[in-house]
């Protein structure tokens, strides 16, 4: 019984690339949130994946409240879910992280605790089942050798737009300027009258919201489930570290690279093997090239 693939190499690679792009699109948004929080606050947020999960679960809840067209429910979820997640993140920042004075190792332990609190509370309130959200629209794109979900292609485009939006906020608005100043040197920023504490809270909320948006986009493809936060967390870690801690450009580059390579490796080999390779890669990058593959050496 030899395993031989149905598709020729060309279409096979094309499908793998599409899968990789979808993964990269969602991953970019999620990892960007993690990277932003690390870059500005120097805090590793282990609960980041749970914000992603919350985004998806809330999307299910919001869209199930709306009768009628699935598009309406989805659009409402796209707005409401990140806002609620942002508010929860803001509260956790005020109640926990600030009290720890953002001490790096303590915040990791605290956010591990936060991870369990969010995940298990969701289990209590939402239950252990996986639930689906209907896509706002559905069409099937017929390629010569296989079919593909049109919605997935739209996810790629939507992520690119959101990415541009984030870039605009960071580069062209006062909020972005303040964030970049705080990231560069928080003490000097404080001396110039920037309310660093408030910036931290905003950044933490914004990071969580990016994860939530990514989750809302993904939930018509995957189902909302209380354990779905772990994979995006690990992948985001991988992306942020390989891209260079705190470097937004590096994060985007690494997300595309990891998303694509994971997507492609998963199709050609085994998804588990792809994950083993990337986790080992991350460990080695952190040891031997701590500034990341695309980062510059720290000041």
């Amino acid at each position: 019984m030899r395993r031989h693939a149905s598709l020729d190499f060309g279409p096979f690679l094309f499908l793998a690339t599409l899968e990789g792009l979808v993964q990269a699109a969602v991953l970019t948004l999620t990892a960007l949130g993690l990277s932003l929080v690390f870059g500005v606050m120097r805090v590793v947020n282990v609960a980041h994946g749970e914000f992603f999960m919350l985004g998806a679960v809330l999307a299910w809840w919001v869209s199930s409240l709306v009768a009628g067209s699935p598009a309406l429910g989805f659009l409402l979820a796209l707005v409401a879910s990140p806002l609620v997640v942002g508010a929860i993140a803001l509260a956790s920042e005020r109640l926990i992280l600030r009290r720890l004075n953002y001490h790096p190792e303590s915040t990791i332990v605290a956010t591990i605790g936060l991870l369990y609190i969010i995940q298990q509370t969701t289990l209590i309130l939402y239950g252990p089942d996986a639930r689906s959200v209907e896509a706002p629209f559905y069409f099937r794109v017929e390629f010569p050798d296989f079919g593909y979900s049109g919605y997935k292609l739209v996810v790629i485009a939507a992520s690119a737009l959101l990415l541009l939006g984030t870039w605009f906020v960071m580069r062209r608005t006062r909020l972005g300027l303040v964030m970049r100043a705080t990231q560069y040197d928080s003490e000097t920023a404080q001396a110039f009258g920037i309310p660093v504490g408030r910036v931290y809270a905003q950044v933490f909320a914004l990071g969580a919201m990016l994860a939530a948006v990514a989750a809302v986009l993904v939930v018509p493809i995957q189902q909302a489930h209380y354990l779905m936060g772990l994979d995006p967390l690990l992948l985001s870690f991988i992306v942020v570290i390989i891209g260079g801690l705190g470097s937004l450009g590096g994060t985007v580059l690494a997300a595309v690279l990891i998303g694509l390579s994971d997507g492609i490796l998963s199709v050609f080999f085994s998804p588990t093997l792809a994950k083993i390779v990337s986790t080992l890669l991350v460990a080695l990058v952190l040891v031997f090239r701590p500034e990341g593959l695309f980062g510059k050496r720290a000041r």
Partner: protein
Amino acid sequence: MTAARVVGLHVLVLALLFAAQFVVSDYDQLTLTRMMVLAVYAVGYNLLFGYAGLLSLGHALFFGAGLYGAGLAAYHFEAGVPLAFVAGLAASLLVSLLIGLIALRTRGVSFMIVTMMFAQAGFLALLYFSRWTGGDQGLPLPAAARSFTVAGLTIDLADAGTRYNVAVALLAVAIGIGLLVVMRPGGRVLVAIRENEERTRMLGYDVFAHKLKAFVISGGLSGAAGAAYGLMFAYIGATFASIQYSIEVLLFTLLGGAGTLLGPVLGTILMFYLIDKASEVTSAYLLVVGFVLVGLILWFPKGILGTVRDRWARWLP
């Protein structure tokens, strides 16, 4: 004399644990057995975290190495209990030596993430090589793999009483090793590295070598706990190598008091009990883990015995 007081206290604790089997219910005896084996794991973890100040988020890898080292030897090669245990111990020593050589080049947050990633890779590898490891399903060990004879005395780990006393003995050995490491001059060097690494280097200590030694001893104790757990309860599974087991041992240690020898034992017993009781009330019993972690970090960073030592008993090791 401080040393006598310290040794006396630890002997007393072990004697109480030994005596407990005559008064507790069947279920508490079973639970205490599990607690003591996991306490060995926590004692090992604490040598690295509490004394050398290295916070690993990947110790499940070493527990898992011991578990699978022993379990696979018993399952595939029909090794007897002593040989399987040695195989588990050797596997965890080897894995911790290799990981230590690489991970100890980093510190702080990077060290936490590197250890976590290695452990995750190990966990995934257990799933990937499912032909050997049983993957998600794990492997139940045959009953024959759990009974052995020493000096004409047959020890059957399937027997609850025997198992309990083996656990007491193992914990005694672990605490003994802990005392040896901590009370001797070498223990002072570990604490010195935790408090001020650069100064310690400039006092002429090979900091890397000391850390590596602590890492390997810690990994070995974790592996011994894993090997014992597998052989005692006749099952090895990937869950034991998952990140949750890395986090629970951190929690045990933090709760009891990092950097105190008995802290992890106390923390393991309390937390295990809490989780077990919570699981009777709700499936979301890990909620307890979350709240205790956050609470400890915010209000009680030194844990129970750490606070006791600061306030009342400075001589506690």
